């Protein structure tokens, strides 16, 4: 081992190895030929970096036989865990029954990150997404209805028609979502009696008749 003085750094204090320490990326398998890294991470990258750099980089090191801590390893057990941001919920399935994976919008608020917060933000994101999706189609129809069909069609008539079409399309989408919810709920019901099913059917009939009557009256009023 070579010893000497480089002016500001005594490199005799570091053991110069022929093998360079490797940075192991989570998810990758470490190669068996290379020697295991000297340092195992606790999982929290901030504390790891703090430990690596808490000693002065330039100037004399206080350690006598310290090895350079540059390799950060995520253990394979940590890497094999599913990512915290990816939430697979059996509640959200597509029409073919496959569970949908969602990337939760997480806030990096230190160590208080938890599944509760992620699921809350997930629900809010989903609600916003469904609301936006439900508004896009009616808006497109309203824009299409605004295009005049006749030469003598007045501005107020066009606006009225586009409003009617918007209300109709939005009401239909809400109805569709409601029915999807009802049918999904039926799927998960267990031990329900025939009488309850009949009552559910009658209630749905009443609700839907009322709903469409309201829409009809509302579109007339517009």
């Amino acid at each position: 081992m070579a010893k000497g003085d480089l002016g500001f750094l005594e490199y005799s204090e570091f053991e110069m190895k022929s093998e360079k320490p490797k940075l192991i990326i989570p998810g990758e398998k470490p190669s068996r030929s290379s020697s295991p890294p000297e340092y195992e991470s606790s999982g929290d990258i901030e504390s790891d970096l703090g430990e690596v750099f808490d000693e002065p980089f330039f100037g004399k090191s206080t350690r006598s036989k310290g090895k350079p801590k540059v390799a950060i390893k995520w253990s394979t057990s940590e890497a094999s865990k599913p990512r915290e941001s990816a939430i697979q919920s059996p509640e959200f399935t597509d029409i073919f029954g496959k569970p949908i994976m969602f990337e939760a919008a997480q806030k990096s608020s230190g160590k208080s990150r938890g599944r509760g917060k992620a699921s809350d933000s997930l629900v809010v994101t989903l609600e916003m997404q469904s609301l936006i999706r439900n508004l896009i189609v009616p808006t497109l129809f309203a824009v299409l209805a605004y295009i005049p069909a006749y030469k003598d069609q007045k501005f107020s008539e066009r606006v009225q028609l586009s409003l009617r079409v918007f209300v109709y399309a939005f009401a239909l989408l809400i109805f569709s979502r409601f029915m999807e919810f009802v049918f999904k709920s039926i799927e998960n019901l267990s031990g329900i009696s025939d009488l309850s099913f009949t009552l559910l059917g009658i209630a749905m009939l009443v609700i839907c008749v009322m709903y469409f009557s309201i829409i009809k009256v509302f579109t007339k009023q517009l």
Partner: protein
Amino acid sequence: MNTYLKYSLVIFTLVVFFTPLLYLKRASERLFEKYGKSLTFASYIVSAVLLATYITCGVLMFQVLNHIIKGGEKDGER
């Protein structure tokens, strides 16, 4: 009313009407898997009531659409 708008609204109504039926199909399949052997005659009647409810909703839906289309045409002709 614009012809394209008319046809697109009819297609949209049909799509919106038939999409929840896919969920109903899946739900009925699961229910048949669960209680297939113990399904009574009353259960079939109940399912028929539910389906009839849905068809009524579809009829109402098209009534409203018809009303909107007719209203749009009358407004234009005036």
